[in-house]
């Protein structure tokens, strides 16, 4: 009787003793941590390369893009909801045979050529790992921000915009996300005031043009938000004019924050930049052999769905080469 026949027999008889866990332990060719656009693109390609692949996704929301109202810059989809696009990624991955499991990864470490992935439900082993854990919206860290979260302070216009119908809102930031959401909010709010610490926006020109054309959007240049004040909900914002070094209080109903992202990379010990983004080369390789990083969690110049997907494809190809190399060495 082969070991797999024995496994089936013991499982059917409910006689599977715990010490046999080791005998039948699966060593994956590749474990991908994160099920956003980067992770699932890597998964699709890895499966097509014939790698025994597992994707681990902690949260129920896969990818930051899920919280975006409309995506207009992913080729093939002139305009599509963020969640809908993510659902299409998941559908495609499932059809390709990518297996996704809901597990919280606590740590990743190397043990010789093996990568050990510690999860909340036990350890997993793989020959290679792709980190695709993305990033979370960064908070301002100013007084009132945490206190009024959900009571006027928000990080998601598509989720919370309708609560601010006919009200006055501040949007903090000047990048792609800030201006996209300022436009969404201007459809429902009485006024949207963009508070930006520089004298020019970083968002794409098409978004800037749309924002400047809206009569209820105003930009306060060289300005920072210092404090959010209220009682049971937000009532006022304290803003500083950097050039004049003057502080004033503005009556306000809501504050939407878009000041960048923080990477989810604390669980892996590889070289990172000062902000925690994983440093990779153009092949998505990290400082540790056999570990790759893709998408928003790496030190990329752009953090878009398409760049995350592209990173994922490159990393899957390199993981395939790496695993093939290991297998050749073993022979």
């Amino acid at each position, binding site marked *: 009787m082969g070991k797999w026949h024995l496994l089936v027999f013991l499982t059917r008889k409910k006689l599977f003793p715990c010490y046999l866990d080791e005998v039948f332990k699966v060593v994956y060719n590749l474990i991908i941590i994160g099920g956003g656009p980067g992770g699932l693109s890597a998964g699709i390609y890895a499966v097509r390369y014939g790698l025994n692949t597992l994707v681990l996704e902690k949260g129920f929301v896969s990818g930051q893009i899920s919280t975006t109202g409309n995506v207009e810059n992913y080729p093939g989809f002139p305009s599509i909801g*963020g969640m809908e696009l993510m659902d299409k990624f998941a559908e495609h991955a499932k059809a390709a045979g990518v297996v996704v499991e809901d597990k919280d990864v606590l740590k990743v470490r190397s043990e010789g050529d093996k990568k050990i992935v510690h999860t*909340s439900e036990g350890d997993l082993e793989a020959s290679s790992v792709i980190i695709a854990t993305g990033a979370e919206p960064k908070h301002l860290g100013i007084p009132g921000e945490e206190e009024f979260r*959900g009571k006027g302070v928000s990080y998601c216009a598509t989720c919370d915009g*309708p609560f601010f119908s006919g009200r006055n809102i501040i949007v903090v930031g000047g990048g792609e996300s800030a201006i996209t959401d300022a436009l969404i909010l201007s459809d429902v709010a009485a006024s949207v005031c963009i508070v930006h610490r520089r004298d020019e926006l970083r968002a794409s020109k098409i978004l800037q043009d749309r924002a400047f054309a809206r009569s209820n959007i105003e930009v306060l240049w060289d300005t920072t938000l210092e404090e959010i004040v209220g009682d049971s*909900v937000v009532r006022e914002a304290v803003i500083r004019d950097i050039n004049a070094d003057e502080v004033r209080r503005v009556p306000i109903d*809501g504050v939407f924050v878009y000041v960048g992202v923080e990477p989810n990379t604390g669980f892996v010990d590889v070289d990172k930049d000062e902000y925690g983004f994983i440093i990779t080369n153009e092949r998505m390789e990290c400082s540790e052999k056999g570990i790759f990083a893709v998408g928003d969690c790496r030190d990329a110049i752009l953090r878009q769905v398409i760049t995350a997907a592209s990173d994922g494809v490159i990393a899957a190809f390199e993981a395939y080469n790496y695993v093939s190399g290991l297998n050749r060495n073993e022979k």
Partner: protein
Amino acid sequence: MTKVILVHASWCHVCPEAKKLWQSLKEVHDFDYDEIDFDTPEGEKLAEEYSIMSVPTTIIDGKVAFVGVPDKEKAVSMLS
């Protein structure tokens, strides 16, 4: 018994994820669970009572416990 109320809305993209989370926890933990649509008289009443200006919001035993999709581990810890 712990009482969990999820306030959600039809226009909220991430609310289905919060629902999935609580429904999956309901399968393995024993607690009372209700989903209330913000755009109903009951939802509006809850929003006023708890000053809700964000969805999904989870109320546990009469207090706002989570704004946004809860972290699974933290959600589980609130049930024990």
